[in-house]
């Protein structure tokens, strides 16, 4: 493989890694938004001591 071909292949690999990294970051960001939304839905006017109230400790 000529040095210019090697450079092109290396550039392509780097670009592929970048796009895969970007996709992974986008997936994580989307999951974070989804989880924050899901865990922000249950609003109550009070809190509870689970171990004491439910498990009787």
């Amino acid at each position, binding site marked *: 493989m000529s040095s210019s071909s090697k450079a092109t292949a290396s550039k392509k690999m780097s670009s592929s890694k970048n796009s895969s990294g970007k996709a992974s970051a986008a997936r994580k960001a989307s*999951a974070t938004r989804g*989880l924050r939304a899901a865990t922000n839905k249950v609003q109550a*006017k*009070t*809190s*509870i001591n*689970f171990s004491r109230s*439910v*498990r009787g*400790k």
Partner: protein
Amino acid sequence: MRSKGRPPSTRQVFSFESADTPLPEEVLLDTSYVVEMLIVSQPLHAAAVNFLIRLADEGVRIRFSSMLELELAVTAFQIALKENHPKDWKRFRHDGRARPRAGRLMTEVSEAWKTVLTYFEHTRVDVEDVMDDVPWLMSNYGLASYDAVHAATARQPDAVGIVTTDVGFCSLPASGTTIFTDSS
């Protein structure tokens, strides 16, 4: 030279409030943690959510007992009672006025839990699948029955760490037990 006395404990206890806590490939979520994570008014809500997001980011698998669903329902019911009767809410279990709110809260909690699960590879273990181990855990380590069900779920088929805010799990044998809990 051999050191005297009891060998050092091999139990590993980590804080889920710390961003540096090392994460395993799979954890068992105890209901006490899930309550903090799902209900906004709980004191450890923010820390529990941040830990959940770390678990998702790192692709950690989740295991839980089917009993968690029942305990979530009981928790929602009790919170609804406590909203209506802050001081002596336990006396009002049969007060019909709290039930509509209790029903809505139970549904909201259940839906939120189902949504959270869509972001994880997870395993739901039926209580009957671990029942053989429960009496043994109770008699050997003094665990309460509910704790023993979750502990048994965490121990088979392979042992995984337990994410919890319940100190009851501290009576598990140190060897091979990993606990993720709050720092208080």
